[in-house]
């Protein structure tokens, strides 16, 4: 041990250095947030609570293709569909077990219509498991609560382009156009109506 080290020990230099820092910090702004009184806005694209997109007519956008359930790595999505009165596909049940979800957002990516989203809501603790079993009604209510309006539109513009946009031209035609640079419909060319087509979503 050198004399210099000994002096440092005797005069408590390190302690004084620390105290000086503490003293300095008294006059600066605190970094601690007073959560939950004070909330931090989530970054854009934050993957929080799930929601099902509601169309203008009030119904869910989901057509029940089941691709979200197919891709889900934790198998927490189950979709039950049936035949409707005019032979259309009806989504009877759309359920997400939120507690099993790993928030990978593959479901959002896989959805061809942009019908399922992860909202930026993250405060949903509860005392019962049942509260985390989301059914179709709850998921649609989540959309109304957290994503309705411009926020929802913005979400799809910025993060996930629904695959069905690739099918979009010409109007009412489910023709695969191969993304950007694909030729547009000839002007004045009549398109043929397709039964049960994708025009809604496109």
């Amino acid at each position, binding site marked *: 041990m050198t004399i210099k080290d000994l002096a440092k020990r005797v005069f408590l230099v390190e302690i004084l250095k620390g105290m000086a820092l503490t003293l300095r910090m008294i006059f600066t702004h605190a970094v601690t947030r007073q959560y939950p009184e004070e909330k931090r806005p989530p970054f854009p694209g934050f993957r929080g609570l799930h929601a099902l997109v509601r169309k203008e007519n009030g119904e869910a956008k989901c*057509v*029940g*293709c*089941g*691709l979200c*359930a*197919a891709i889900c790595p934790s198998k927490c999505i189950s*979709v*039950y*569909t*049936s*035949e*409707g009165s005019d*032979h*259309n*596909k*009806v989504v009877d049940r759309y359920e997400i077990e939120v507690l099993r979800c790993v928030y990978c957002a593959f479901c959002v990516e896989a959805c*061809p*219509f942009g019908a399922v989203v992860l909202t930026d809501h993250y405060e949903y603790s509860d005392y019962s498991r049942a509260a985390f079993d989301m059914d179709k009604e709850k998921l649609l209510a989540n959309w109304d609560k957290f994503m309705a309006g411009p926020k929802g539109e913005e979400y799809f513009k910025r993060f996930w382009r629904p695959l069905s946009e690739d*099918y979009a031209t*010409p109007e009412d*035609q*489910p*023709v*695969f*156009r*191969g*993304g950007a640079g*694909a*030729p547009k*419909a*000839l002007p004045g*060319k*009549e*398109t*043929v*109506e*397709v*039964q*049960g*087509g*994708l025009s809604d979503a496109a």
Partner: protein
Amino acid sequence: MITVTINGKQIKLEKPVSILEAAKMTGIKIPTLCHHKSLEAYGGCRLCLVEIEKMPRLQASCTQYVTDGMVVWTETGRVVEARKAMLEFLLINHALDCPYCDKAGECDLQDLVMKYGPAAGRFTEGKRKHPESYDDPIIVRNMERCISCTRCVRMCSKVQGASAISMVNRTSKTFVEPFSGGRYNCEYCGNCINVCPVGAIMSRLHKHTYRPWFIEKTVDTVCSFCGVGCSVTAQIRGNSIVRIIPESEKGLNRGLLCNRGRFGYDYISNSGRLKSPMIRKNGSLQETTWSEAFMYIAQKIKEIKEKNGGAAIAGVASGRCTNEDNYVFQKFMRLVVGSNNIDSIAGFAYAPARKFFEKIFGQGVTANPIQGISRSDGIFVIGGDPTAINPVLGLQIRAASQKDIPVATVGYAPGLKGFAANRLIPKPSTEAALLAALLTEMLKRKPLPAEKTPFEEIIGKIQPVSLNEAESACGIASGEISACVDSLSGMTNPALVIGRDIIQRSEGQANLLLLAALAQALNGRIYLSSELPNEQGLIDMGCLPDMLPGGRPVAVDSFRKRYGEFFNAEVPSAQGLSLMEMVEGAHSGNIKALYVMGENIAFNIPDNKFVKDALSRLELLVVQDIFTTETTRFAHVVLPAASWAEREGSYTNLEGRMQHLKKAIDSVAGLEDWKIIAEVSKVLGVDMNYRDSRDILAEIAKVSPLHKGVTYEDMDSGECMWPYKGEPLRHDLNIVGIDMPDMKALLKKPEKDKVYIGVDKVLFHSASLSRNSFALNSIYSEPHAKIGKNLAAKLSVASGDHISISTGAGAIELAAVIDSDMPDNIVLVPNNFEGRGAFRVMGWKMNAAFKAPALDGMEAVLKKLERVSAEVSE
């Protein structure tokens, strides 16, 4: 030896095959759309194009055969480019509605587009428009999706032989349509659904509910409808079967199914299933607990046994129950109740015919592989339409016919019309005269050897019948008969397919003797049509009044003692009663208690009124079933059983193949039949300690000499064929107990003006079970009476008019359907629908030789009903 190089891999081949097959042998997969392995090569989709060195153009590998020194590349840039272009062409008109389409996920086109790149379409023209067709109750056609691969059309005409659908229109407007227009009006085998590579033809039963990844479990099991025992795969979600599909590589059906197997499974989810045990109290059935029901049955059986002896109690087994159920049931009847009174509906035709043939040729003579039918060099069909009774067996006959193998049918077999070179339709109940004439002529051309076997001695004693005698008896021109003999005498190993119609006759034994003689003269193999999935099995399990498990006669002391020794119990030596004798016994009061397992005897036995009368006189009637039936209405105790999909066990099909029936879903309310019986037995003081069906099979393997060492694993291999690893009973060459037919009586002409009633076996239904299937009912919802055109003209009845059919036993009113091939003096009525079955008005005579009912000579009076007839489709 041909040497071919595919993608640098060299293979040597014995004989030329297509490049596609050669590639498959080396493990190289070439994509296809129009090719299907059960169909001929077509070369239409151009997706299997490959590059062959020294050939300037790409070649379709499904039609191009390999030659020596050929060098093939399957995935070069040119090939991939060509495939991509083909897919782009296909997508011009193919609707891209994959999210709605039920085929998505198992669609060949989708997979190929995924593999060969998203074919960015350059076509701006609109797609062809074609509304989905919902005209049919169970098949939906979406012709926007059709890619004109013609698999369905080829399947329908070449394999199924129905030729119900065709491609119509030309070029891009081509699509598939049934000849009958919107509704299919075909055999509804659904094999077109199976081969469609896209979602153009699909089943409506699971429309919009199915996705391949929704399936939680698949179970390979056996079909529950007929004696063929096709292998099927049940796809399950939650606790329900979403779909039944055939497995293309497995089982004897090799990817084919019939309408019952493919669509009929929905009866298990019918809401009318029995849910709780019921006991009759104060005249009505009231729900109760299992234990109370067991106590009640046990106490009653005990009382009756003490008072009247075990012989006053009888049991009815079922061909729908598994081997394990039937084994436990006969054990219960023999050892616990102490009675050999056990029989089933199989005792009416299948069992007596089998016993008769085994008496002559030895045990297991009817255990011939079904696949062998299409490989034989001639087929002789008699006694029913195999395409209706055993549809997949019928397909073997059609396949043979398409290979130019001669087929002869005797009797009205509409499903083989157009497939049979010799089609003989004799007058009702005159088949014996025809058979005798056939035999006489055969023996003229192929005389019996000088050194005769005992059976040949018997054949020699059969009185000859000339062609003219036969012509006057059965109304078939002698030229036609001798043409049939010409055809038969050219066969060296024909298949004889025999149905119940000629067995359930007063001259049934004569018919069988003549058939056995024909089989001997022709060197033929015998196939017995079986309507229930396990008729063969229940016989092997000893559910016969005179047979123990393994086909050992009760009458032989050593077998009986040996069987009893396994359980330290005494097997009663007195031969039991046949089913018909039980009913008579119940009527006369000798039988006090009847235990019915999975059979609707009040409906499936002729003369319903007599049977119901007999049932109402019983002191105890216990019925185990899955639905409320005509029989449960008379029951004192009704016990809900588990359905076919809800139990494990084994079925033995008509060729003697044992197959493993696996549990697919959990039972809603019912218990397995063996479990119910074991519980009753426990209350009666005999503890049958079975944990599961495996324990029972292990016991069968020990007790039955025929089933030595049989396990479910053997069955899973698919090759658990008769005689398994066991010992068939050596057969006694001294054939005794065969009465010579009285030819004079058989040559008696039927009276001309009388009309006889017969049972029509409907392709779309299976006894009284299938009426609970929504799908089968939507295809065939109303029973029709079938009559010939002359009879119709006489009555001035048009198709769809209602007629009343009255006999001594009663009358029914049905819509008539006219079939020009039917004999003139017969009316055929199906026995499937409540209140309108043939057996409601059909009486019976006891066939003393078989102790089974004979159904011939039932006269009926037909009358046209004057009222507006409801529209009837055939």
